[in-house]
């Protein structure tokens, strides 16, 4: 059934998916500042330039804090929702599911714009708080979905056994359910972290003076400079992602949750 032209299409697909990464990688070592291709010479200057550009360093720390905080909060609040949806049948569960998948249906740019108008401009909210709220909201769909999937794989009788043996529900959850969901939670964490860390649309409007996320500062750098610094930074980020994703895939089978 699988014929040669189908393999050809597979090769084309992968060239198209991964080719740009090869080009970024090559460009980040090129000595030529004008980004002519193929690059001439070899230099590590652009990597040095990444670390000397305070705009990138500052925004990296902000993105890191933001991603960690919003992922953790969305998990802590999303986990009980997933538990309720999987373990109980109740009227309104459809509504709950819709509400928690809504942030994925609304364009990120619109979310950021609406939050800017309402919280920052009207409510005088701190920029960082606005970013945190926006990122937490867009992570709920992922947390709820991934945790639900991992709960469904867990036999409910295990938990019922704990309860019938005298453990209270909360204790049964903490001692029996939670340890069995480690992989699902870790997968949700990696997915949430990456989603927040890479997000541009939600952060774009919510970034304020002095508080900018890394992808947004990369975008604004591009408006003024066109040199291989962005390529070098992208290479670093891709390397970071490859390590993170490959280890998550090895350990947890990330692709089944995406």
């Amino acid at each position, binding site marked *: *059934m*699988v014929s040669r032209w*189908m393999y050809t*299409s*597979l090769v084309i*697909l*992968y060239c*198209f*998916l*991964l080719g*740009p*990464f090869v080009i970024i990688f090559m460009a980040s070592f090129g000595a030529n500042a004008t*980004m*002519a*291709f193929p690059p001439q010479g070899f230099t590590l200057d652009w990597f040095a330039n990444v670390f000397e550009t305070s705009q990138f360093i500052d925004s990296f720390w902000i993105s890191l804090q933001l991603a960690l905080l919003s992922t953790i909060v969305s998990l802590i*609040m999303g986990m*009980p*929702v997933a538990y*309720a949806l999987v373990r*109980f049948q*109740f009227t309104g569960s459809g509504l*709950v599911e819709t*509400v*928690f998948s*809504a*942030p994925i*249906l609304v*364009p*990120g*740019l*619109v*979310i950021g*714009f*609406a*939050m800017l*108008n*309402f919280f920052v401009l*009207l409510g005088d909210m701190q920029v960082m708080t606005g970013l945190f709220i926006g990122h*937490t*909201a867009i992570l*709920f769909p992922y947390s709820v979905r991934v945790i639900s999937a991992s709960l469904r794989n867990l036999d*409910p009788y295990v938990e019922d056994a704990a309860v019938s043996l005298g453990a209270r529900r909360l204790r049964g959850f903490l001692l029996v359910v939670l340890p069995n969901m480690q992989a699902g939670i870790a997968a949700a964490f990696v997915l949430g972290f990456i989603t927040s*860390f*890479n997000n541009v*649309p939600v952060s774009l409007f919510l970034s304020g003076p002095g508080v900018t996320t*890394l*992808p947004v500062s*990369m*975008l604004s750098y*591009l408006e003024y400079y066109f040199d291989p610094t*962005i*390529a070098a930074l*992208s290479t670093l*980020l*891709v390397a970071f*992602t*490859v390590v993170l*994703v*490959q280890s998550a895939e090895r350990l947890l089978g990330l*692709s089944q949750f995406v």
Partner: protein
Amino acid sequence: MSRRPNQTRTIVLLVSPAFIFVLVFFVLPLMFLLSQSVLPADGGFTLTGYVDFFQSRVSRIVYLRTLRLGLIVTGICVLMSYPAAFVLARMPARRRSFLMSLVILPLMTNAVARTFAWLIILGRRGMVNQTLLSLELVENPVRFIFTETAIVLGLTQLFLPLMVLPLVSAMENIPDDVLEAARSLGANRLITFARIVVPLSSDGLVLGATLVFTGSVTAFVTPAILGGSRLLLMSTLLRQEAVILFDQQAAAVVAVVMISTTLAVNLLLRFLRVRQV
């Protein structure tokens, strides 16, 4: 699971923190945005924002361009993914999981980094132009950036994984026996593909198309870098209205049109999926 008298209380306790969070921090700002689009600063109620939007040549062109490019990108993604997804779905599990992790990789890298590559490929002194110049096919560098082609290429690369993933998982569920039965009953490859594989994977196709289309019509980074202010899409138009022209009502109208479009497409395709079952 046995029903317990305090089950309702438990459910409310479990769901309400996150539910209230989403209502207050997500639904409320969107309601405010909706009101901004119909309530001008000087009071009253007006639909002039929407009338202006659909009467203005510029915004109409931008809206139609956004939809058109979204359709083109979705179409290209389907054509590129369908046969490849079939090969992936028929592979031994180990090799497949390695190749699938390569499909996910681009999805996990930020859009600025991924779009930047297209500047190197399509730029004035980029790969394509250097090749064309050295082959003496052109005398001067061709402008590729700030064209629809550039945006389509960038968006296709960005959203291909969202088509491949659901297609592969739908095709994995097609049993080998079914394909063999079709072949042994005399169907050739093309007919087997068209009559067996396509209908049995249509769920994945519809889901992938929804994701790619809504992603394309709302993406910001790619049109911002590859289209700029010369070739606006809805997302870059929204940004322009809000940040450069400071027209909050017009920006709110653009935002509401964007949401309505993605919601309509999602509902339509969900309806299609339900009807098939």
